[in-house]
């Protein structure tokens, strides 16, 4: 099948890829760019596991063709942390145990990112409604809601909480 050359600006870096028009964005991210943090859940655009941000809005990458994203800015879970420092959302998900198996987590984090960017001070009810786009089979959502609210609070600077490092050694230091 003929391929098309497209450019995706993923987590700030432009990548040129040559893809079949039928190839899904999630498959290009995972297979062509090696960004396996974005997962595939239901393949019908229902569960939200494959959520990425495309020009700052969440999309289901399992029902988006990569060619539709030509020239777009895409953000994935791999772009959240700053080196050793976790993003406040990642850190609060860890602290509140807002994950169990971790499979829905990247999509959930990206959706939460969008929620906070659109409304820096969401109520727990707004967060709950906001994440209803994404299924989680493990947690029952409660600790995710807690984590997103806590992260939003930190990102607003309401609470000057030291950034938690990710490795045990750093965490203890």
């Amino acid at each position, binding site marked *: 099948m003929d391929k098309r050359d497209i450019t995706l600006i993923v987590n700030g870096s432009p990548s040129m890829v040559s893809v*079949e028009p*039928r*190839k899904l964005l999630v498959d290009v991210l*995972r297979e062509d760019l090696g*960004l*396996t*943090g*974005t*997962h*595939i*859940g*239901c*393949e*019908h655009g*229902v*569960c939200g*596991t494959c959520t990425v941000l495309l020009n700052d809005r969440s999309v289901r990458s399992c029902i988006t063709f990569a060619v539709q994203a030509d020239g777009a800015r895409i953000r*994935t*879970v*791999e772009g*959240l*942390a700053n080196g050793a420092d*976790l993003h406040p959302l*990642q850190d609060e*998900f*860890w*602290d509140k*145990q807002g*994950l*169990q*198996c*971790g*499979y*829905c*987590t*990247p999509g959930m*984090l990206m959706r939460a990112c969008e929620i906070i960017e659109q409304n820096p001070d969401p109520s727990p009810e707004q967060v*709950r*409604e906001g*994440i*209803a*786009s*994404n*299924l*989680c*089979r*493990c*947690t*029952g*959502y*409660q*600790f*995710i*809601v807690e984590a997103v609210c806590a992260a939003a609070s930190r990102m607003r600077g309401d609470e000057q909480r030291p950034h938690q490092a*990710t*490795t*045990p050694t750093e*965490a*203890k230091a």
Partner: protein
Amino acid sequence: MTTVSRPEPPPARTHKEVRKWIGKSIRRVEDPKFLRGRGGYIGDMTLPGMLHAAMLSSPYAHARITGIDTAEALAAPGVHAVITGAQAAELTGPLPDFGPNPAAHTWRCLAVEKVRYVGEGVAVVVADSRYLAEDALALINVDYEPLPPVTDMERALEEGAPLVHEDLGSNCAYERTFQFGEVERDFADADVVISDRLRWRRSGGQPLETVGALADFDLATGQLTVHTNSLSFTSYLFMVAGTLKIPANKLDIRPMPAGGSFGSKLFATKPAVIAGMCSRAAGRPVMYLEDRVDNISNCDHHGSDRVYDVQLALMRDGTMRGIKIDTVDDYGAYIQFGVGHHGNALAQVVGPYRIASVEYRVRAALTNKNQQGAYRGFGSEVNNWMLEQMVDKAARQLGIDPVEIRRRNFIREFPYFIPTGNVYDSGDYDGVLDKALKLADYDYWRAEQAKAREEGRYIGIGLITAQERSVFSATEFWFWFDKPGAPVTSMPESVTLKVDATGGITATLYSCAFWGNSPETMVAQLVAEEFDCDPRDVSIVYQGSKNGLPATGPGGSRTTVMLAGAVEGASAKIKAKARRATAHLLEASPDDLEWVDGGYQVKGSPEARKTLAEIAVMLHLFKHSFPEDMESGLEDSKVFDHPYTTMPSADRKDLGVFYPFMGHACHVPVIEVDIETGRVSFLSYAAVHDCGTLVNPRSLAGHIVGGTAQGIGTALYEEYVYDEGGQLLTSSYLDYLIPTAMEVPELKFAHHETPSPWTPHGIKGGGEGGRMMAPAAINVAVNDALAPLGVRLTELPLTPDRILAAIRAARESPR
């Protein structure tokens, strides 16, 4: 009453009173990689030259395969191999099957002469990419001769029904009636007998990650390596080698983290066999990863699908005497785990109540559906639901308060042997109930309910008290047969601990891949408790089946208890060696030493002391400083066997001890039913669980909250719907409805701790969590709401359609 001679229980343990790490909600050590998108799931893995397999599935519920033409598919671009069911039957044997009569209901990785359910595989294509493999699937021509399907379990058992397996000569895979205690006497003595017919429809675990396997067959050595997210039952993996026709010592199954299981990845061997077969045929590594439709229609892990006819015998004051349970379970087209699900139910069949006798009749029906496997509860959650519906009905009929009828019947002396022979190790059911009533603000909601009724609103409160058995022994899979094909195994779990030359500790786990539970955090906390180190400094390794120690893996809420036993045992061996080494280095007697804060020291002279690191470096590098019989290194393993299981009696009137560590919970949902739309919404939900000593309260809370969310799905939304022709109507998440954040209420939860006398630290399992209780509680709540209308729902899920139909029926023919 039959007198049963029982072996003595193991001696009661003395548990530490002060613990450093057990009981702390530390952040899980597993999480950082998942948060960074570096989980390393099976779908993330590639190998050089890797090919992809895709499966062609049957569109028919029941049909004879009269021909398959694969020529066009084989010629398609990028295709390396096409394997039909008939070819697969040459390349592989039947799949591992613990069913009652595997030779007569033979189960293979692909269908051979006929298909028995929609979604059953008929061929696989191996190609350069998944896209090309799926392209080629469309080019395979299969000729089917449709056969009449059988989809209703009770009709399946009738004379003349179409046969799912001709060789079996019947659709009844198993039937037996058990009697425990003096059932007829208890029924004759009872004042009232409450009867009902109850229907639980099938749902399933539906983890967001499907099952997959990446197989790599090495032609040079004959070695097959399979990476999969379903490693479990390591001790039984020789059966997979048998299926693949390779020596067991040439098979290495390596665990990958699983994106959820909830039981549904338990011993899921089919993907591994398909990938292994394809890799051998293609001479290249092959990935077979189910897509969502494969997983819904062909995962072999659908949950229970039962109809019950139940009679509960009571005295007028609410005292329960005996229960007769007659159940038919729709197993689908195969029956890989036999009726182990009912063994599970028999472990706690009387709930927390003193019911003296039990009659249990089970019939396993085969139909044209995907088969049952495991789903969080493994059939005992269904028993919880059935029993609580009966208790609730009895309370209503006898005019006794639902709290009071439970208190009147609670078991209060432990250990307590229930009529089936299983033992409840410990419990405090009143304590849990008191805590739950307070947490739920029960009296407030009863008052609100009364007010709402005056306003024509239908609020219901669903109080239930139920069990969560933990740590199975395999007895439940074979006590069904007078002459079982195999005796009991102890379902062991193993851990190796290695202390390196710097004192750093690495723990190796065998069957315990990460499934969304917290094996690494549990082991890290347990090791830290033993060695006074920081749990975040403990390194964890998952070993594949090759060179693996005996192991079983997650299931039946066993992992934490069994890992605790293995860690305890391995630690004791290491500490014994470290004590001897220290005694030698300090020229002291081993008996004069004590372990204090991470090292051994002389009692009364704390300055004479060696830390673990000091001992370890000596043992690793300076063997000749020690007596002749002391070897280098500081490493040891423990194979921990089930701590308390006994044999069933020959007449099967007593099944022995097989699930002894008994958790308990009380759930109190408050719901409102909109009688115009049939919608159920939550006003409040409180849950108190007692899983013995807590290791990480937050992670256990995760099981309670998350399990409750799944239970809400079971109670209200989720169902694998097959129509009369056997078509699966819910083959995607557009139709199979998993609760979102909007359907799950904020849960008020609390823990209660009644330590087990027989497990390390007193831990009981808790992994099945809220799903053990929520379906029962929500059904009771809905019936409580609709009681003024004379409505009682007896069929799950409680969809708006079913609720409205019940309301209409009650209006048309008031009781």
